[in-house]
Structures are given as structure tokens and as C-alpha cells.
């Protein structure tokens, strides 16, 4: 299902940062059970200023700063959700998610399965990933593959301002535990966002660009790189279709399969190391369900199997970009 804005929708051009702030604001206003807490989210307004003004508006019962304790952030969110609240916690950098990992993987993900009734864990963990700022090995890892192997968790990685807003609202209203991943290098990216209230449901892939010659399945910040690669390829007469799953798990493979059936070429793009990553799962799903439509081996674009390096040139070598996507598409087509 494509989610292009129709021409009549009134929109405002705004950043991802503003969109997230609006989403939090609207949900805090709409539902008194929604809580927002984490390190530096209240008085400071979030390290990257995502929650600016919310503490002032909603007060410290609803929006508050916490001790430096990710275990508590994960564990208390599970408990609050089981008791009926709708907690949104910020675990600053995604590299810190493993500290709360026990609560996310062993608790949040499994309580709906474990309970004898309809009790679930409606919590959202917001966290940042993204390379390119010289923050080195512990402040930029893309963690989607760590969590997509956990049944019961939902993993969301939006790309555009419109989706950041709609999906965060969708995640807060969703009854399952959601890990909501924000690319810290893209907070300033801007685009049209509907003026009217809207939400976007989880687990629906979206076609970001239509094309007939190759399918690029890109996630998070890599959607921008894919769009850039597609523009360049278009100048060379190659029209790429870009599918943005938006929710990594549970994955909506429909639009991916449909696209591959049309283009017969598949390239995946992610920031995390390629081995054992999201692209590998997409490739396997396509091989399962659309193998005979493929004209060439699947190409996966991602990082090498190393930690994120610090030195400028090493980080550049590490980070996958539009160039890598462009050559992967050409390679696949020329095979």
C-alpha cells in the first residue's frame, strides 16, 4: 500500500525534530496515560532537543528526568505498561539499548505470550543511531538486527518527517512494545507533513519512488541515500523503485515482493554491518517467495564487519552511502 500524500492534503514543510516533538505533544495531550521520561528529556528538552517544551507544558508527573540508569528505564516502562500506562522512554543512544536489553528481550517481548489474558506491553523506547559525526564505536550503532530476531518486539525505523510523526503516534497507540529508532544525523532533514491530525500504522511498507528496473529496499537514513542514488541512476536511464519498510519487524514483505516481481533486481541498503543484518532477511524472504522473478543475485549494501571507527577517513570508508547503492544496482543489472 503506497502512502503518497494526495494533492489536496494541506502540508507544512518541517524537520524531523519538529515532527517528533509534535507527535509527543499530541499524544501527551490526547491520552493521560502517556508518560515521557529519560535522561535529560525534561528540563534540558532532550540531548538533541526532541522533547523541548514538553516538561514545561505537561509538568513533571508526565514528563521527567531520570537517574542515569537504562536498566530502570527499560524495566519501569515494562511495569508501567503492564499496569495500564503508555510509557515512552528515551534511551539516548541505541548503543545503550543492550543495558536495558534484558527488560526488552526477556520481559517486554514475552509478556503478552506469558499472560493468560489480553494484557500486553504498550511501551515505546525511543533511541538514536547513525554514523558520520565522529562519535566512534559507542554512539552510533544501528541496532535493528539485534532486536529483529526477538519475537514480540516491534522495531520501527522511519525515514521522512511525515513518517517520524505518524509512526511515533502509531507506535504510542500500538499495544505491543516498540523500539523506535531515530537517525541522529537526520533530525534536521525537512519535508512536507500534513497539517491535519494523522497516524501511520506500524508494519506497513511504503513505496518511496516508483521504477521498473531495480528494487532498492532501504531503511532509516539509508532511504535518503537510496533516493540520491536513484536520481543519479535515472540520469543513466535506470529507474529504481524504492521500498521503505519503515517497520523492520514484523516485516510487511508484500510491497517488496510485488516490486521485485516487476523489476527482477533486488538491492538492500542499511547502515549496520551487512552480515546477519536486515538486508539478509529481505534477501531470504525474496528467495523464498519470488526466487524465479530474480534476474541477478541480490546485492546487500551495508557496513563492513567491524565496529564504527573514529578517524575521519576510516569512518568514511565504513559508512555506506549513495555511491555504494549506485554501484550495487549497476553491478546487479550488469550481471
Amino acid at each position, binding site marked *: 500500500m503506497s502512502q503518497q500524500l494526495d494533492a489536496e492534503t494541506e502540508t507544512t514543510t518541517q524537520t524531523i525534530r519538529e515532527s517528533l516533538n509534535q507527535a509527543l505533544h499530541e499524544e501527551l495531550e490526547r491520552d493521560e496515560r502517556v508518560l515521557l521520561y529519560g*535522561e*535529560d528529556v525534561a*528540563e*534540558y528538552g532532550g*540531548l538533541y532537543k526532541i522533547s523541548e517544551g514538553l516538561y514545561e507544558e505537561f509538568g513533571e508527573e508526565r514528563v521527567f*528526568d*531520570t*537517574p*542515569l*540508569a*537504562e*536498566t*530502570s528505564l527499560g524495566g519501569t516502562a515494562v511495569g508501567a505498561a503492564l499496569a495500564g500506562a503508555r510509557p515512552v522512554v528515551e534511551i539516548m*543512544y541505541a*548503543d*545503550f539499548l543492550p*543495558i536495558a536489553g534484558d527488560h526488552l528481550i526477556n520481559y517486554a517481548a514475552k509478556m503478552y505470550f506469558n499472560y493468560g489474558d489480553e494484557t500486553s506491553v504498550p511501551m515505546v523506547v525511543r533511541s538514536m543511531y547513525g554514523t558520520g559525526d*565522529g*562519535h*566512534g*564505536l*559507542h*554512539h552510533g550503532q544501528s541496532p535493528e538486527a539485534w532486536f529483529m530476531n526477538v519475537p514480540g518486539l516491534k522495531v520501527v525505523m522511519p525515514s521522512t518527517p511525515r513518517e517520524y510523526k505518524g509512526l511515533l503516534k502509531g507506535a504510542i497507540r500500538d499495544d505491543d512494545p516498540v523500539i523506535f529508532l531515530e537517525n541522529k544525523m537526520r533530525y534536521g532533514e525537512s519535508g512536507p507533513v500534513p497539517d491535519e491530525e494523522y497516524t501511520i500504522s506500524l508494519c506497513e511498507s511504503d513505496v518511496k519512488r516508483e521504477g521498473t528496473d531495480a528494487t532498492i529496499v532501504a531503511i532509516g537514513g539509508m532511504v535518503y541515500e537510496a533516493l540520491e542514488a536513484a536520481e543519479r541512476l535515472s540520469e543513466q536511464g535506470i529507474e529504481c523503485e524504492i521500498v521503505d519498510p519503515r517497520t523492520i519487524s514484523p516485516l510487511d514483505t508484500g510491497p517488496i515482493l510485488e516490486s521485485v516481481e516487476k523489476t527482477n533486481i533486488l538491492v538492500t541498503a542499511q547502515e549496520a*554491518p*551487512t*552480515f*546477519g543484518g536486515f538486508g539478509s532477511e529481505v534477501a531470504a524472504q525474496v528467495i523464498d517467495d519470488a526466487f524465479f522473478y530474480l534476474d541477478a543475485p541480490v546485492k546487500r549494501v551495508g557496513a*563492513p*564487519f*567491524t*565496529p564504527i*571507527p*573514529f*578517524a*575521519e*577517513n*576510516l569512518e568514511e*570508508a*565504513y559508512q555506506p552511502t549513495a555511491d555504494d547503492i549506485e554501484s550495487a544496482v549497476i553491478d546487479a543489472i550488469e550481471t
Partner: protein
Amino acid sequence: MVHETINHTELLEDLLLTRRFEEKVLEVYQDRGIRELPHSSLGQEAVGVGACYPLEDDDLLAPSLRTRAAMLLRTPVEEIVAGMYGTESGPSSGRTTEHHMGSSEYGILGTTGMIGSHLNPAVGAALGNRTLDNDRVTVVFFGDGASQRGEFHSALNFATVQELPVVFVIENNQWTEAMSIDKLVDVDDLADLAGHGLPTEIVDGQDVEAMVEATAEAADRARSGDGPTLLEAKTYRYRPHAETMPEHRDEATLEAWKDRDPVEMYIDRLLERDQITEAEIESIDEQLQTTIDDAFDMAESDELPDEETLYHVYKDTEIDHWKGVAK
């Protein structure tokens, strides 16, 4: 009195080195940038300097991101600076930042960007050293923020029941990024968080001699098999959490702390006791400044690392780093 056993020229050199280094970092960062985002230790230098002073050369240090003194007193200055620039001559040739450096050669336990995640590894290092039957002591530095984690309690407890040779040093600068400790912990002294049957001591972190004395005692206890000690050093940072963040703390409080500047306090005391002359201080300072300036000049003209440097992931197995598979 401990000050009678201190070599004051050396201790002052350590303190001034750290101070001048941090000043230079700020100056260069503001002027033309440095790849590693500075998290300045200005104002807190006496904690690390004093705690390192009474240690043996092979004692192990586990610094926090702000314990610049620990890095500087163990590592050649030019290596530290190259580490901040991410150039070839840095501790890991640019693979990681100087903040996170680890070096067996210099006795620095590899550190982490996860605040407080180094506490249990530091306790483990003490366990390792006990297993190897040497008498190395491990000194682990961390902030008030780290003391809010469960890691803090589990590390203290493990070290205490195992009577391991560890000295825990809280650098309590009273701020966890932009959050004041008052909102995060309901005790006045973090030493009161400890429990676990472990001896604690509150130390004036602006007084380098007090830090030397407290750490010397704690290290002796550890070395003689009597187990760990927790020192809470009360201190304050002069700069915001990181150089990208605005100053939002109360100005009067900051000024009051600056009135008890660790470098000035120590110098005044030495002059008063006739343990050093103004001329001697000046000559130490000049020499240090040259060393530091040279180190920055070297880093600025140093080469970026070779791409091969990245491929340092597994020690025992060769892999294809792009495909992620064994060769």
C-alpha cells in the same frame, strides 16, 4: 603529615600538565576544531592527579571519560593528542577516540562510552591480577552519574565479598550531563549509597594532597589484601558537560568553586610552606607548555591512518571484513 612525603615538584608538574593540557584543548577546539568532542576536566584535575600520584607504575587505571589526568600521566602527550585527532600515531591509530583508549603497555583498562559500564570490568581486572598473583591495584574512576546505575552496586558488592584490590573513586562533580544530582539521588553524600560493608571516605577533590593521602591509604589496604575502598571526591567542572552544550548552571555556584581552584590552592600552599619558588613554577610551566604545543603541532601534521587499520577485529581469525565471513 602526608605532604612531607610528597615530591611536590613532581605533583605540581602533574597538576599543571593536566591544567595546561585542558586549556590548550579548549583553545584549539574553539579556534579550529578537534575531531574528538572535548568533555573538559578543567576544575576537576586534582582528583585524577592526586589519585594517580601514590600508585605504582604497574597499577591499573580505569578512567571515566573525564579523567584526563589518568590518561595524561600514563601516556606520552603526543599520543593522547593524536588520539583526539584520530590520526595514525594515536593509541589505536584512529580506530577509537582517546576517550576510550585502552593500553596494556600504559596500564589503562580499555574504557567505554557506556557511562559506568567499566566498573565491573575494573573489578574483574582486580580478580585477574589476584589470579596472576601479582600485587597490582586497580583504581577505577567514575562520575556521580555512574553511581546511579545498578552496575555500581553489583561492582562494589562483588569486590567486597571477594576482597579484591580495588579503589573506587567517584568524581562527584554534582552534574549528570545537564541534570543536577539533587534531582537524581536523595542523599547528600554519594558515599552513603555504598553500603555493602565497604569502607568509604569523603575527600576534598580540589585538594590534591588530600587526594594523594586518601588514595595512598586505600591502595595500601587493597595491596595488603584487605579489600576495596570507595572514595568520594567532591569536585566541580568549570565547563559544560561537553563543548557542544550550553552552560546552564548557576553562575554564583560555579564562581564559588573557582575560588577553590585546585591548581591555585596547591601553588599558594607550596609558596607559603616555602616548598617551591615562583621562578621554579614558571620554568615548569614553560617546559610543559612547550611539550603540549609540540604535541598539538605533531598531531596536526600527522597522517590519517591507513585503511587497513580498520581490519583489527578478530585476533585469532582472519576474516573478509566486507563479507563478514572467515577466510
